[in-house]
């Protein structure tokens, strides 16, 4: 998993709680990397898994809620790091439409082997979009958070319903504009 996800998560903990809390979480998680993350690095998924487990334990919040909140925060980080990607789109749906061939290309530049989730537009109208999502990590709640933050960025409001498909790791987002 891309380093910026880890650095953003640590940053969020430091900002929204405290340095001490962030430090505690990293220490308790007993990470192979000892929490020394860089945004351009690439780290095993198990590392974030461990951090999230410690967090749910410490905060008492469900994992999905944690991921959603992190998604909202992560959008801000990504938006400032990759401003030019966002500037090409004017609406949420436009951005989602080009997610795979635009944003993910940036990731592939540094990590040609990166295991990225896949987004496919199945259906699109002016106010509704059905978006296919495939991820072996099943981080749909993170994606949902990202979407909400993006909608805010484009000054739009959305309702999202997640549907788990029969095929493993396959999901569908039903996104409606409010």
């Amino acid at each position, binding site marked *: 998993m891309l380093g910026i996800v880890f650095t953003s998560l640590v940053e969020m903990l430091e900002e929204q709680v405290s*340095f*001490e809390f962030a*430090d505690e979480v*990293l*220490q308790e998680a007993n990470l192979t*990397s*000892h*929490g*020394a*993350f*860089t945004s*351009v*690095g690439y780290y095993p998924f198990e590392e974030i898994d461990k951090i999230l487990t410690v967090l749910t334990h410490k905060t008492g919040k469900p994992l999905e809620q944690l991921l959603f909140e992190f998604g909202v925060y992560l959008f801000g980080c990504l938006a400032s790091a990759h401003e030019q990607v966002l500037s090409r789109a004017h609406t949420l749906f436009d951005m989602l439409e080009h997610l795979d061939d635009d944003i993910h290309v940036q990731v592939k530049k*540094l990590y040609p082997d990166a295991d990225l989730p896949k987004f496919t537009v199945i259906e699109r109208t002016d106010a509704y979009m059905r978006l296919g999502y495939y991820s072996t990590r099943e981080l749909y709640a993170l994606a949902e958070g990202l979407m909400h933050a993006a909608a805010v960025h484009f000054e739009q409001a959305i309702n999202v319903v997640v549907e788990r498909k029969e095929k493993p790791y396959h999901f569908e987002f039903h996104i409606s504009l409010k």
Partner: protein
Amino acid sequence: MADKTSTLSNEKSLLERRLRREKVARSAAEALLESKSTELYLALEKSKRAKKQLELALWASQESLWDWQAQSDILKISTFSMNSDDVTVWSGTPIEIMSKVHEDDLDNLQFHWSQAVFGGKERVEFSFRLKLSSDFQWVRLRGRVLRRGNAGEALHIVGTTKDITTEREAEQSFQLMASAFSSSREPMVVLSSELTITECNNAFVHLVQATDPCQCLGQPFNTLLQGQKVRHDQLNYDKNQRFETSIRTQQDQIIPVDVSIALFESHLQTSSHLIATLRDISERKSNEDRLRQMALNDDLTGLGNRNALSEALTKFQHHHTPFVLLFIDLDGFKAINDTAGHERGDAELRSVGSVLSQQFSRIEGVVVRWGGDEFIVALPLASMEMAVTQANQFIEALEKVNIIINGIHLSLSASIGVAAYPEHSTTIEGVLQHADAAMYQAKNSGKGQVFIYREGLHESIKQQVSMLNELKRAVEHELLDFYIQGKYDTRGKLRGGEVLCRWISGLHGAVSPTVFIPIAEQHQLDKAIGLQALEAACEYLIMMETQSGYAVPLSINISVNQMLDPEFPFQAVSVCDSHQIHPSMIELELTESIFIRDKAAAIVALNALREAGFRLSLDDFGSGFSSLSYLRSFEFEVVKVDKSLIKDINANSKGLALFKGVVAMLTGLQIEIVVEGVENESYLPFMQEADVNLMQGFYFDKPMPCEQFLARNF
């Protein structure tokens, strides 16, 4: 205090941990940066090499790269070289290029270009002539639209271009060849090395009566041929073959053709193909068949003639087949001819012919007319008894034929001589002579008899029947043959012919004219021979006319006796009239002895003939007295220079001078010159130099039967 100290120490260790994490993260980022930049550098180098390789490939295939962008409307053409930095770039607007394009190609170029730019066509490909220095060169442009605008208009097109002048020239020459092939009137096919038809032209489609070339393509050529086929294995050695065969058409017709086939190998010899040219020879074949028919058939009766007999007997001899020969001479025929005339006589001969056929064809006898009222029947594998029975049955049948002329009953019979091969003679000529002798004996024993040859008969008959009597019979029964020898101009073109008398006697075999002509003259047979020669000449002229629509004049030899006969001019004109031949087509050859005999009478006779329209020629000039005064006495149209005058002129300067003198003199007198005895090529330059009109001799041809002469020249 202790709490404060503890808090401080906690904060310190928190900061230390954060610092450590930052340090580790920084060095990890630096290592990543290092490895990525190395990777990037290597990739860049690799792509540079790939680009150079691409440029080299373009350079090697003599292609240049072009690139057009709508925004600038500039077309950039880059030409690469082997050295990495040496790239020649030409750039300009399409308008600038069009100013150098051949005017005939402008429309095509504009059409293709707008198809790509505005017409939504992705691929661009066209050729045009471009004036580079002084000459136009053929250029081919290929490319693809890379990017289009919102309205579908092309924004960016790239591609390659190549000078294809050489290819175009080759292509044009190929097209020329291909059109020559397809429009040729000679049927032609292209075959694969396995002899399968891969191409054929319209003439071939027409020949095989197909409606479409597809009906021929893919077919093995040999299966179309009937009879001789292409010898595949032999072609690799010979490279070409020519043969006559037949081809089966789509309508199952068989057409005789002449096939010429040649092997072509491609430049690299990786593949080879064959081109076959065919010629429809049906017309030639049917002419040949007709001439063969004519050569072997007797016109009057439709039976075989002497050639047919000789062919059949030679075949029997070759296969060691014994045969019995019946020599048949009609009794009482002369009376019919004399009473009722030639035409009636001819009709009776035809009916005799059919009686003969009825009698002998069923036992596979070969029936021929020997000449006049004489016939010969050859019976292969027949016994003597059977032959005699058959002969008697024939006489019986013939005698039953009722002939009424002017209310008078006439009858025909026959005397038949019989001889067997190889019993009586082992040669064809021998068995013929023996059968003829036996026929004489039959005649002597009374009419309507059959006589079998017995030893010694030939000799004893020969003693009884002198050559004179035999010649009389030959003349009376019109058994003489008239051959033709051609007369040619100095370019070798046939201009005329001389009719020459030949005599093949049953009893005496072939007798030389130097022997029988003096006998004929001594006994006044020469006049009849002269008239028969004239009749033959007239018939031959008709045959030439019928066969090919034109004829060459023929000459005949006329004896002094006949020339001086006051009746002759009338007779000669009458013969010509009855054949509807104009006398100017006949040349009468006479010798100077006529002037020795009676100069005054000679001049009278010659003038009469000239008035009738005949051409007159002085024969054997230079052999006898050759008195020049004869040339003054009478103006001959033609003088035939004797062969003794040109003998050895190629080696003898005196002889040459004399010959040239004679020719000059005759030319001065405006007399046409025919040189006789031109035996070989070495004479030709002298003849051309002396500017003689016509030549005759073995170099051109020997005297031959008319049918053969026609087949050769017409």
